[in-house]
């Protein structure tokens, strides 16, 4: 899949048209400017996708599945950055072939050649050894990273000729749109078995705990070690081995599965959730052993999960700063996907362990003459940790603290009495309290002895609270915003609205969910 360098004026014109459309639709605020330009580009030059994707020196990774593909793509992007690569991505919410065409077209010049800026300096990660992308400075180590839903998969795969295909899972919840599970699986199989145009059939990265997904593996190749990119086609299977967190299952009859090989009812001695787990059928067909597996995991609630991953490239242990078993699966998918592209283990570790850095942990935002730090604190341990970190240097700080009581925060705000706000006493240069339970937090701070000597402002509305907090500060000073989960989403939304922060769709995060959530939140911030 070497860059062709071939000039194709038609592709170039299509790309220009796409870029114009992207600008126009962004101005018109139509879905973040993704699908429309892709449509235009595809109309002008039908072969655009294949033409442009073929120029990506690092090849293409495609991520698909019902749940977790966006988070998995996000994690993969983080890992690629650590490895010194520049992922070219389709923005979330437009995970169709058009969105992918759009993502590529905006990088193409009028001659139809991809013009990619050099890779940003790796954030502490060691460069990805063995990747041809690294040697191609002109393209800045660009690697295509495209997520696609089940329906678009059949069109995308033949067009972009991915070196790696990651399949997270196949649940029933989208079947109204796409038909039976088996139909989807059959479409996948057809797309994957189509003869490769180039000389580089890809690696399938599959969730072995999902029987349908595992059945996509070429026969006899189950549990095979990582084949090098550009080598023979193969499967790299991932799954959770630590059976302590499963239960005999599945819990609900609706999740029951039949053996993809013989049709007999599958039994689940260990079920993690849904139909994901360790299964076998009465005729001896069993879940294959994963090559990339979570051999040990220790959940720490919202703080994340301590993970030990066993991979063909070695073992790695780290705290995944995201909660839940579903994020363990996402991390496994990303780790396996990254290893299949030849990224070193150190980059996998750094990308995953630092994953929430972009959301919630001391995120820095320039707001006019001020700097605002966003700190997530949603339980006593997190709050104490945040306060300890903030006041470690012994200097007074300007604080904006917000407490919400929506489902994602926990409706019970009792926990604030278990957090040691007493540490803040005498440490706040100014203090603004906000959120749906602002009054309660203000009272907690009063009992912690914080209010004495510090002017404490109560403003439940986050927008006005931010304005007030900034108004109290001399120019150039820093505001520390300590926020519960939905208050964090709300404040980010306010900052994005004012152009201080990129909105989620620009970053390719979980857009469809978040944007509607945030707009609900912002309205929820107003008093009834």
């Amino acid at each position, binding site marked *: 899949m070497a860059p062709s360098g071939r000039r194709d004026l038609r592709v170039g014109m299509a790309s220009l048209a796409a870029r114009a459309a992207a600008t126009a639709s962004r101005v018109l605020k139509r879905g973040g400017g993704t699908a429309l330009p892709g449509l235009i580009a595809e109309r002008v030059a039908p072969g655009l996708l294949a033409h442009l994707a073929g120029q990506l020196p690092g090849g293409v990774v495609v991520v698909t599945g019902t749940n977790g593909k966006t988070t998995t793509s996000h994690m993969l992007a983080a890992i690629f950055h650590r490895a010194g690569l520049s992922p070219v991505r389709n923005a979330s919410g437009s995970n169709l072939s058009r969105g992918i065409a759009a993502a590529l077209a905006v990088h193409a010049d009028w001659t139809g050649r991809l013009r990619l800026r050099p890779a940003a300096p790796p954030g502490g990660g060691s460069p990805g050894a063995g990747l041809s992308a690294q040697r191609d400075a002109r393209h800045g180590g660009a690697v295509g990273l495209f997520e696609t839903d089940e329906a678009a998969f059949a069109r995308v795969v033949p067009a972009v000729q991915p070196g790696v295909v990651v399949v997270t899972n196949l649940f029933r919840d989208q079947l109204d749109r796409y038909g039976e599970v088996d139909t989807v699986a059959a479409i996948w199989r057809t797309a994957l078995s189509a003869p490769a145009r180039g000389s580089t059939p890809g690696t399938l990265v599959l969730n072995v705990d999902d029987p349908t997904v595992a059945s996509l593996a070429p026969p006899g190749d189950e549990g095979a070690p990582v084949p090098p990119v550009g080598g023979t086609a193969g499967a790299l299977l991932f799954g959770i081995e630590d059976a302590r967190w499963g239960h005999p299952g599945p819990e609900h009859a609706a999740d029951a599965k039949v053996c993809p090989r013989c049709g007999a009812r599958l039994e689940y001695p260990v079920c993690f959730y849904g139909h994901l787990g360790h299964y076998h059928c009465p005729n001896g067909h069993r879940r294959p052993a994963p090559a990339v597996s979570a051999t040990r995991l220790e959940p720490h609630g919202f703080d994340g999960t301590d993970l030990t991953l066993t991979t063909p490239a070695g073992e790695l242990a780290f705290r995944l700063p995201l909660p839940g078993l579903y994020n363990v699966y996402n991390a496994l998918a990303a780790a396996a996907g990254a290893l299949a592209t030849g990224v070193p283990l150190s980059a996998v570790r750094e990308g995953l362990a630092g994953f929430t850095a972009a959301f919630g942990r001391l995120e820095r935002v320039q707001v006019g003459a001020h700097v605002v730090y966003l700190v997530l604190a949603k339980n006593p341990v997190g709050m104490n940790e945040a306060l300890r970190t903030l006041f470690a240097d012994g200097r007074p700080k300007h604080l904006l603290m917000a407490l919400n009581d929506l489902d994602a925060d926990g409706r019970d705000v009792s926990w604030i*009495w278990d957090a040691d706000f007493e540490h803040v006493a005498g440490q706040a240069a100014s203090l603004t309290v906000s959120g749906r339970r602002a009054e*309660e937090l203000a009272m907690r701070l009063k*009992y912690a002895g914080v209010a004495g000597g510090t002017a404490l402002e109560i403003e439940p509305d986050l927008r006005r609270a931010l304005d007030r907090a900034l108004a109290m500060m001399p120019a150039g000073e820093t505001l520390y915003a300590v926020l519960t989960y939905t208050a964090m989403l709300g404040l980010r939304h306010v900052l994005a609205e004012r152009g201080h922060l990129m909105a989620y769709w620009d970053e390719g995060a979980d857009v469809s969910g978040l944007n509607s959530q945030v707009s609900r939140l912002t309205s929820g911030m107003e008093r009834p």
Partner: protein
Amino acid sequence: MKLVLGHLYGDLLNLYADRGNIIALQQRCAWRGVDLEVRQIGIGEAVRPDALDLLFMGGGQDGDQRLMADDLFRLKADALRGALVDGLPMLAVCGGYQLFGEYYQPAEGPPLPGLGLFDLHTVHPGPRVRRCIGNVVVEWLTAGTVDQSHVSSRESHVSAAETGPGARLVTRAPAPAPLGRGATPPVRRTTLVGFENHGGRTYLGPGARPLGRVISGHGNNARDGTEGAVVHQAYGTYLHGSLLPKNPHLADHLLTLALRRRHPGATLAPLDDTAEWRAHEAIVKRYGRRGAVRRAA
């Protein structure tokens, strides 16, 4: 002036920030120049009611509560029963509230005996029935009697049999100056606010009066509209959140009861409770809609 608060199993029971109740009592004393000493009463330690002015017990997870059940009956039950009749002010929240009752009937297996301080029992309806979770606003039923209550001596307490519905907390007491007059205005608010999270349903017998009537939320059993219980000077409730900081009238009521056992006629100095009432009112406003009362047939 000094008061001693006994905290039962404070190291084991701190499920829903019971610490907030202790902080509230401590600070409200400190702001008035009263020294409140918090004495932990853990496993292996006896309860000495004569040395206490106030007793608090919080909630724990089932396992924690079983851990201390044996110790409770062996070392503490008798003293607590005596203290109740003696008029020691007590507050029991959540799991502590259930344990103060006659028994707890789990979803499976035989009933677990309680301390029998309160004429009530609790039944767990099984894992298929939803827990009672959410913000609660109740009308404090005994609030009206509280302000006129003037408990000052040990002879002044009615027996459990005399505390039927409508009975006054104290009927035979001498009449010292009304509590809080000129200090905290007499019961400006009659609502109590908090958060509940319990699987068990609690039913009161004739010997216990409800602490309040549910305006929104579930209360004792999601059925009869009652919340909590009052027997003598002892209060039980499902409300945490924490309870006492955002219900300063209840906090001060308990402190006044404690104070007057040693210093008859004593009153509490007024405090600026703007922050407390603001938090209280915000909850009443947001969650206190009457339509939200949950009662089955």
